[in-house]
């Protein structure tokens, strides 16, 4: 079918579209809108990657999916849906099997691959009513990592364990401490105080309160835990007068205070299963609390707490010890809500509904179809410019909630590359570290992988290879590297001390950078918990500079934020490349795998575009879990 979009459109524009090959990363909120618009606009060859499966909460905006598709691959279902109205185009879906635990570097990873391959990247994001589209072209514009992105919100340990002042602190406590302690890996380090002082016997002090005692039934256990974390632990905290000199004191809460003479769990039968359906495990359901938007009283929260705990231990015991919090686990959400609310009550912090608590605990980002549709349109417009090398007209476009200078959609010229961006300009970084105490493993985990986002690093000191990853290594090489990881820097075969320059590379990302090592003896445990400081790296923005400050918790689209590059948070994971084997690869190998074999007569790589669209990209969730 032949039609002209615009009387202004030249033959060149149309043939640019017809001859293009596009890779979309993400088949979610923006992805569905984008795939539809690309197809309608005549793009004949589209590749789409998303390793997610469809959930009910996607259906309010990811319109290519139906209720019946829940559980299926987003990329595949999206492809099928679009082929229904454009049967003649090629859409290739990629659904990765394995979740990459380092997915939070997904965007950076794609950025680096695009830079390496010289393929333009159109990147976008939305949160509620806000959205933004940016074009990244190597050498001409900023790359995705040129601008600092806000660091994920973290809170000082003591705020969580001892001096919460906001509801979010209570949620973090309930989720990362209490829930983790009760239902997660017992052996994992946890800041929760597990010892109770039993005056009668000093040997009992060493006992872990969370161990269920012989002969103790679940209800007794639950009440004991309740009393320990909401009663005893608070009394313990109160005994340190210093802490409370300038703060409101919390009050300890015990089961007996809340329930007076009643017993906590007179909640009737759970097993209302007829038809052989398994009962849906929910404390709310057993207690007759129907509305997730309701605010529960302290008593109701306490009932939920005890009931949820009981349900976990009686009906889901197999999972205990392995559970991690999942926002789609109703019972987990109920437990965390109740626990957070009881703690909040203790500290005089306003209580919140399950709906609100779930949003905070699950880092849920609000999302609507309309913003995604607008952004998708803007992406395609940029893509067409890119295909024509219409460089002067590339724009970064912001979609605002409130107009600025009459504009709801505001295009801005892209910025030039940041000369001190270590990714696209290869500027050296500085690392302050205690070379006598820190091991190579610490540097690899905390710096090279976590901060620099390299998945398969290679570390050299001069010509000496200190560490590398790959499938084609010899056994003795592997052993050597494993041994190196456990050595402190100054004791490596090629000693690393102050003044040393390390070269770090990721061959797959074609990224190389230098790190100047500076020895430093002391690090503040609170402010510098990693025991090392990397500078010259894109710093987090002002709000998070001082880790001590409790940052405003709510993930909100504050109407004050206009025209700023967005960092958005996520409820969907994004995987970019299906399988990574970690082999040392040449660029051509990577290109073939991710973009398929190219026919010789196809237009050169400059005509291909990668579109990185993610409704929300999660950095905070994963970071906090580390």
């Amino acid at each position, binding site marked *: 079918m032949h039609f002209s979009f615009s009387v202004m459109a030249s033959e060149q524009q149309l043939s640019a579209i017809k001859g293009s090959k596009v890779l979309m990363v993400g088949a979610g909120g923006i992805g569905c809108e984008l795939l539809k618009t690309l197809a309608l606009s005549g793009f004949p060859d589209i590749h789409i990657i998303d390793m997610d499966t469809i959930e009910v909460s996607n259906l309010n905006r990811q319109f290519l999916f139906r209720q019946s598709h829940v559980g299926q691959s987003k990329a595949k279902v999206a492809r099928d849906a679009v082929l229904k109205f454009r049967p003649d185009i090629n859409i290739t879906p990629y659904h990765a099997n394995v979740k990459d635990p380092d997915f939070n570097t997904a965007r950076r990873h794609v950025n680096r691959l695009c830079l390496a391959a010289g393929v333009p990247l159109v990147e976008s994001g939305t949160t509620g009513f806000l959205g933004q589209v940016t074009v990244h072209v190597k050498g001409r514009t900023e790359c995705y990592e040129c601008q600092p992105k806000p660091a994920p919100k973290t809170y000082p340990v003591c705020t969580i364990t001892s001096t919460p002042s906001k509801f979010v602190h209570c949620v973090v406590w309930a989720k990362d401490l209490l829930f983790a302690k009760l239902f997660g890996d017992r052996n994992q380090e946890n800041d929760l105080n597990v010892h109770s002082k039993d005056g009668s016997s000093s040997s009992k002090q060493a006992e872990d309160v969370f161990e269920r005692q012989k002969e103790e039934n679940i209800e007794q256990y639950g009440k004991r835990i309740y009393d320990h974390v909401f009663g005893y632990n608070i009394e313990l905290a109160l005994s340190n007068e210093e802490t409370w000199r300038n703060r409101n004191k919390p009050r300890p809460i015990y089961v007996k205070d809340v329930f007076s003479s009643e017993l906590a769990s007179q909640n009737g039968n759970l097993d209302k299963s007829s038809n052989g359906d398994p009962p849906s495990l929910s404390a709310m359901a057993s207690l007759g609390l129907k*509305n997730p938007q309701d605010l529960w009283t302290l008593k109701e929260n306490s009932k939920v707490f005890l009931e949820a705990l009981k349900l976990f231990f009686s009906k889901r015991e197999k999972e205990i010890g392995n559970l991690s919090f999942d926002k789609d686990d109703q019972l987990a959400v109920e437990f965390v809500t109740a626990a957070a609310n009881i703690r909040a009550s203790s500290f005089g912090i306003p209580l919140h509904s399950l709906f609100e608590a779930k949003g905070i605990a699950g880092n849920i980002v609000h999302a609507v179809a*309309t913003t995604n549709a607008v952004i998708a349109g803007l992406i395609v417009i940029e893509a067409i410019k890119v295909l024509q090398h219409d460089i002067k007209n590339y724009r970064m*476009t912001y979609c605002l909630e409130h107009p600025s200078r009459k504009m709801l959609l505001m295009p801005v010229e892209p910025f030039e590359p940041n000369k001190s961006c270590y990714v696209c300009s290869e500027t050296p970084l500085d690392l302050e570290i205690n070379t006598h105490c820190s091991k190579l493993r610490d540097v690899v985990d905390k710096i090279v992988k976590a901060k620099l986002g390299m998945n398969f690093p290679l570390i050299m000191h001069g010509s000496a290879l200190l560490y590398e990853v790959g499938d084609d290594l010899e056994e003795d090489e592997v052993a050597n590297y494993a041994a190196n990881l456990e050595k402190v820097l100054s004791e490596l075969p090629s000693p690393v001390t102050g003044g040393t320059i390390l070269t770090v590379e990721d061959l797959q990302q074609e990224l190389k950078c230098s790190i100047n090592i500076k020895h430093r003896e002391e690090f503040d445990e609170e402010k510098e918990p990693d025991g090392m400081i990397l500078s010259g790296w894109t710093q987090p923005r002002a709000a998070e500079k001082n880790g001590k400050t409790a940052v405003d918790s709510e993930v909100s689209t504050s109407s004050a934020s206009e025209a700023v590059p967005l960092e958005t948070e996520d409820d969907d994971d994004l995987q970019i490349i299906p399988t990574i084997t970690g082999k040392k690869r040449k660029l051509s190998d990577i290109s073939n795998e991710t973009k398929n074999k190219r026919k010789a007569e196809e237009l050169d790589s400059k005509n291909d575009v990668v579109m990185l669209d993610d409704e929300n990209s999660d950095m905070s969730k994963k970071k906090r879990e580390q």
Partner: protein
Amino acid sequence: MDGEELTEHETALYDRQIRVWGADAQRRLSKSHILVSGLKGTVIEFCKNIVLAGVGSVTLSDDRVVTEELLAANFLIPHDENVYAGKSLAELCCHSLKDFNPMVRVSVQKGDLSSFSVDFIEKFDAVVVSCCSLSTKKLVNEKCRKVSKRIAFYTVDCRDSCGEIFVDLQNYVYSKKEDAEMIECRLEYSSFEEAIAIPWRSLPRRVSKLYLAMRVIERFEELESRNPGDTSIADLPNVQKLRKELCEAHSLSESLIPDTLLERLLASTTEFPPVCAIIGGVLGQEVIKAISGKGDPLKNFFFFDSMDGKGIIEDISKVKAEG
């Protein structure tokens, strides 16, 4: 849904948007009725958006028979003559839209938009018209204003790679939070007829050229008794003449309405899909705001032109007389 509370299913389905506009707003949406006329690409996008958002009902009006051209930016209807032959646009779109959200009642109203009675229109909370003549726009707008209940009225037109939205919320009162306080806002909108009657010299400074160009084309179609959108590049000389007359009458320089813009609006009979998505998205959000009573509504024209990439709001309203 008739109950006061959202059902469990609605809460799960609408979770992400409830976090944007709240459960009350969602409830109000679920009780609303929208009339939509003129089902080309942009309006299809709009319909998709409001169906996903969970309005109570959507009534579609467009008796036109499907043609390849009308399918250009339409993702609801497969390009299969066996499927679409003999059916109207409204019927085919209705069928597909229902799929997006089974909780929304989507139906078809046959007949000419201009013939719908006031009684009929009174059933709706919002009316969106597209692909219709100037006289029909005015007529429908007046009917919306005649009834005691407030009916939001919108027009939307996309030509080539640009588009225009018009909003009339009559006297609109809503509340919003500012600095932790709830404040009440009042806006007075003009009807379409009132707005376009404003002398061009009294328009906002540097008003969007697209506004002026659209008015010229609109007037041209009216004078020539053309069906909306039924123009071609061959009309350019006559349109230029009309431009000259209008500009002289309004004492405005012709250079404010460039030839290139007129050419684009005249010659292109199909819509540009990315622009449909953008305009349909903005319009969707506006209707949701007006129905839910949440959020500052756009007042009163919105323009987008992919040539410069700007999405601009212009306030072209009758000024209230003093005293």
